């Protein structure tokens, strides 16, 4: 290797805050070049991406709807990532949350009680935790890699949901199509902004972000997570249990992913479908890292990712740009964000002499 990345002795405080701004500027510049090359008016295209989706009340509400699962899962995953616990299977935990919470809704179908919704939320949280407990057990008991186990369980979860909506939970009046009944009103999340789809889940998500912030910065649990993640040996010396941190991280991630899944089915979707998430559990991993594993950062990263999705749709509708361009544009945004962050913590060093590996 002629070029290597070397950790900077000290991060520039200025750069830490400037980095997202620089990344955004670079995305805009490359975006302009990309659109010019395609023969599209770049001003209009950028407007369609970043501004148009939120020029109206419904758009702002949709931003919240789209960001809710991303932030909720991203913020919980960031705790685990700080502890070096790699829960890649949030998508499966989300699915189990939807199954368990949605199962409660179907069990109480037609029951008009204020207790249905809280019960569903408990069901969603427990479902996600249960699914995350499996990799936690396998890791702490058999030292099985949680990246692999949690990821594989995602496919199991998706198939489980598929079996349920194709079979026992199928809408009896639905011509055998694989969909559950549409949930009763008492099992549907209240809309908090009339005329939109913004639901109670958004407020709970904000509360969770605040709670995780307090947890990580003010409590001994948060301290343990950070110590175990950065210096497991030091953590052990201090008497912190690595296994406890693993269990805690995975269960927290599972709980929030499950809750996010429940919010999707009892919020904007309103029923169980064979597929309920376009990969929120995976996108949340990106959100966690773009937000630098900090709750506030994750909050804004979730909004940014959500905006880029809405922008992609609006660019297709108003500019007739193909979806692939949206993908390229989103990719550039993420690339610059992460690249800028890397270059704040690390610097390039040219190695002129060969064999200087250990030098």
């Amino acid at each position, binding site marked *: 290797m002629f070029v290597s990345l070397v950790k900077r002795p000290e991060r520039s405080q200025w750069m830490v805050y400037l980095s997202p701004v620089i990344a955004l500027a670079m995305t805009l510049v490359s975006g302009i070049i990309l659109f010019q090359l395609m023969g599209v008016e770049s001003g209009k295209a950028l407007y369609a991406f970043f501004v148009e989706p939120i020029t109206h009340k*419904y758009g702002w509400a*949709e931003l919240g*709807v*789209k960001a809710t699962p991303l932030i909720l899962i991203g913020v919980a995953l960031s705790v685990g990532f700080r502890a070096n616990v790699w829960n890649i299977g949030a998508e499966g935990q989300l699915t189990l949350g939807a199954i368990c919470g949605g199962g409660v809704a179907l069990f109480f179908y037609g029951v008009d009680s204020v207790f249905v919704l809280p019960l569903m939320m408990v069901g969603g949280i427990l479902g996600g935790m249960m699914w995350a407990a499996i990799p936690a057990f396998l890791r702490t008991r058999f030292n099985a890699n949680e990246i692999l186990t949690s990821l594989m369980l995602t496919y199991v979860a998706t*198939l489980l949901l*598929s*079996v349920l*909506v*194709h*079979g026992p939970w*199928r809408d009896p009046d639905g*011509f*055998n*199509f*694989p*969909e559950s009944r*549409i949930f009763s009103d008492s099992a549907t999340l209240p809309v908090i902004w009339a005329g939109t*789809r913004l639901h109670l889940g958004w407020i709970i998500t904000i509360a969770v972000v605040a709670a995780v912030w307090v947890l990580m910065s003010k409590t001994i649990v948060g301290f343990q997570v950070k110590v175990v993640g950065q210096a497991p040996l030091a953590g052990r010396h201090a008497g912190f249990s690595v296994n406890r941190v693993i269990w805690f991280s995975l269960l927290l991630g599972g709980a929030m992913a499950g809750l996010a899944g429940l919010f*999707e089915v009892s*919020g*904007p*979707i*309103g*029923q169980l*479908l*064979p*597929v*309920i*998430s*376009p990969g929120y559990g995976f996108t949340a991993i990106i959100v966690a890292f773009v937000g630098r594993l900090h709750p506030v950062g994750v909050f804004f990263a979730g909004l940014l990712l959500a905006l880029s*999705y*809405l922008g992609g*749709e*609006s660019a*297709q*509708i*108003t500019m*007739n740009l*193909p*979806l692939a361009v949206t993908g390229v544009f989103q990719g550039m945004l993420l690339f610059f964000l992460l690249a800028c962050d890397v270059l704040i913590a690390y610097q390039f060093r040219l190695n002129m002499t060969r064999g200087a590996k250990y030098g």
Partner: protein
Amino acid sequence: MKINTNPFGILKSLPALFLAAAMMVAGTSAQAEDIKVGFVYVGPVGDHGWTYRHDQGRLAVEKELGVATTFVESVAEGADSERVIRNLATTGHGLIFTTSFGYMNPTLKVAEQFPDVKFEHATGYKRADNLSTYSARFYEGRTVLGTIAGHMSKTGVVGYIASFPIPEVVRGINAFILAMRKVNPDAVVKVVWVNSWYDPGKEGDAAKALIDQGADIITQHTDSPAPLQVAEQRGVYAFGQASDMSAFAPTAQLTAIINDWNPYYVSRVKALMEGTWESQDVWSGIKTGMVEFAPYGDAVPAEARAAADAVREGIVNGTLHSFDGPINNQAGEQVIGEGETLDDGVLLGMDWYVEGVQGELGGQ
């Protein structure tokens, strides 16, 4: 290869256009430039299958009527679709086609909020004053494919790559094997469910597995050409899905079912322009040209061609139905006898296999 019984064919003729133009001048209808039509697709326009054919329909609308169109591709069938449909409704689209079953409830929700906008949902069953449904009797096409397979399979085993165990797909499997067993009473079909409409990797793997199990013809109810490419490599035959896929399998493709939405889309947009659009439920097949076929591959012998043509003709003139009795279920029990035919109600909710299908139907 168009069938001349196509009632929409007349739209392509010049007089109709002149008539439409005259009516526009008379002010009884909307100007082409006032109308925008939106399309919501479940896959990418380049899938060479389902979405590709819908997009061909959209292009036909642009070309024949000069109407501006918009499409949004790869829209997930969950929470996102409602926003996309709504955004189309608020940006001046007078007619919106939502082209996948999973858009049913979102389309209905948006249709209730925008009574002045017209909606058309493919393959669903929920309608409203401003929400039509349309679908094609693809099972009729499967009957033609099954007939060809009956003549051409040496092992008597056909591999069927299926997407989801919904009535639409089950109906296709049943129609296929019923027709095949009329030619070869011992024929069986093996089904692999890939749980996806479009997943070239899984579809290709399924094709390999089926060929390894003795299938010498592959057919599919998924949208990518991957199974045909596998068939081409392995030297077995296959049928294209939704569009002519012979480019991917010049030797292997025996024919393909082609979904031809063009005449339907043009007629519906025209109805909107003329102010005659009404909510309806359309389910038509070979007769109206909604279900078409690619030219027969070179490998198809004259005898099989003649049999397939006869079946098509029978379906068009009503002397033959894909689900004419006697029909036995998978367990061998008679469902209907000679002289009876399954009705549309049974077909719409079909969740059981007929005799000759191997494997269990998922989720029962």
